């Protein structure tokens, strides 16, 4: 076996204050909460109320023309339990940017479908899996699970073995899908 490579210190989030963040701060002030680098990737935490405006600015002025991904992470112990994550890409700069907006359990988040049409199915998926509602979405329905399903499986308090037994019984005619 070869010698083990020198142990690098674990990557720590480094505060980020580059031109992009400064421009964002100049324009949106307090709505830009935090910015840091994690594994060399830029993350900017923004106020959920300003999401649509910031998204619009990122697309039009900062040329982040593609919404690569939109998803969420559930932190049930936090006051605002959801991170809504927008992963942006700019063809002109060949750069990625991750926007993070915090949302509480029953707080609707502004839909960005009007900025990036790609958000349509992605927001539906986030709604389906986490129960986050996106205000202004043209057609917010479940996408992977059946429309009548109860519960949102990617929430941390949804057990891995849990299912909507009533739905399974009614539609599949079996006691359990397990």
């Amino acid at each position, binding site marked *: 076996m*070869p010698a083990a490579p020198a142990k690098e210190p674990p*990557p720590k989030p480094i505060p980020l204050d580059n031109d992009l963040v400064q421009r964002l701060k100049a324009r949106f002030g307090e709505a830009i909460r935090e910015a840091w680098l994690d594994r060399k990737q830029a993350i900017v935490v923004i106020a959920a109320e300003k999401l649509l405006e910031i998204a619009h600015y990122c697309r039009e002025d900062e040329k982040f023309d593609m919404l690569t*991904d939109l998803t969420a992470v559930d932190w049930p112990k936090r006051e605002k339990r959801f991170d809504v994550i927008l*992963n942006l890409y700019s063809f002109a700069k060949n750069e990625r940017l991750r926007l993070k907006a915090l949302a509480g359990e029953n707080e609707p988040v502004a839909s960005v479908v009007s900025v990036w049409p790609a958000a349509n199915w992605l927001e539906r998926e986030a709604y389906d899996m986490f129960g986050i509602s996106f205000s202004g979405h043209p057609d917010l329905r479940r996408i992977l699970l059946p429309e009548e399903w109860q519960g949102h*499986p990617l929430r941390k308090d*949804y057990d891995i073995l849990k299912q909507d037994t009533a739905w399974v019984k009614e539609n599949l005619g079996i006691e359990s899908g397990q």
Partner: protein
Amino acid sequence: MAETRIPNSSNVATTVLGADEIILNMGPQHPSTHGVLRVRLKLDGERVRESECIIGYLHRGVEKIAEHRSYQQFAPYVDRMDYVAAVSNGLGYCEAIEKLLGAEAPPRAKVVRTILTELQRIASHMVWLGTHALDIGALTPIFYCFREREEILKIIEKYCGARLTTHAFRIGGLQYETYDGFEQEVKRFCEDLDHKIDEYEQLLTENRIWVGRTKGVGILSAEDAIGLGVTGPVLRASGVKWDIRKAMPYAAYEQYDFEIPTGKNGDTYDRYLVRMAEMRQSRRICLQAIENIPSGPIMARIGKVLKPPVGEVYHSIEAPKGELGYYVVSDATTQPYRVRVRPPSFINLQAFDKMVRGSLVADVVAIIGTIDIVLGEVDR
């Protein structure tokens, strides 16, 4: 004008129908949908006015499963998403976790990974070409394509023992050394391949029926493609020269010479040409890589128990179908806190409605084929 409202709430079904319009349901069990895709079409005679994809029939909740497995245990699950390109899925996942750990695979592992992933890209494009041509009515290519794909599957099988759901790579490198004669077999296959691709092109590229069925069908402009987040060959056929292998190189791609084929019109024919050219480029990469596989270890020292430091990472690769990304959040335990898969098929399928509006019913089949979806990945 008589108006009918059809129950069972959904987008297309609740739209008000004109007297000449009907709703046509296609799938989920339909040979041309390549799995369990259900499409509802609102038709005016032969013309498609609106469409809606109904998906989720193959939903297994891999993202939830990931939260209940250790980092290594989850690796085989990713093979079951895009099951015609399992090697690519594995590469994306392993590299994402390596990035999260701050580790890197040794050079030898990177090159072997590149070779196998490119072979898998060829195999995946073969499946696409065969089935796509079959859908449109060209019966011959599928036999040729599966003949060549078989050779690739044999190489992959000899390497790791599995043909489809391979689990070929491990976090940190490779589990297995290449077998004796690996280089020669890959080389022999690649040398023959150019001529084989010529054969397919002879059957299709200038075939009047093929051209008639694909040219001008399912046009997607570059602007729409970017807005809809479309990636991979579909994006490139619309004229956007963007490939993650070049834009943000991973594995060993930086070392090799290859081009990014693009199209002009963004129609089904261009997507066909782009994928054909891509197979030739993959062959080129394999031939360069096989000439010079560095010696040395195949596994980085990362330890048996993986506890990546707190934080998150997004890593994406150019899978045969487009950008395959993994967004992984770690809370410094042995199990990921969250794994999000950015599936290319799911997001590309969203462009289906844009491509299909105004076209004929018969073209729907061509358009489903040209997006190149795998339902295992759409539904996860």
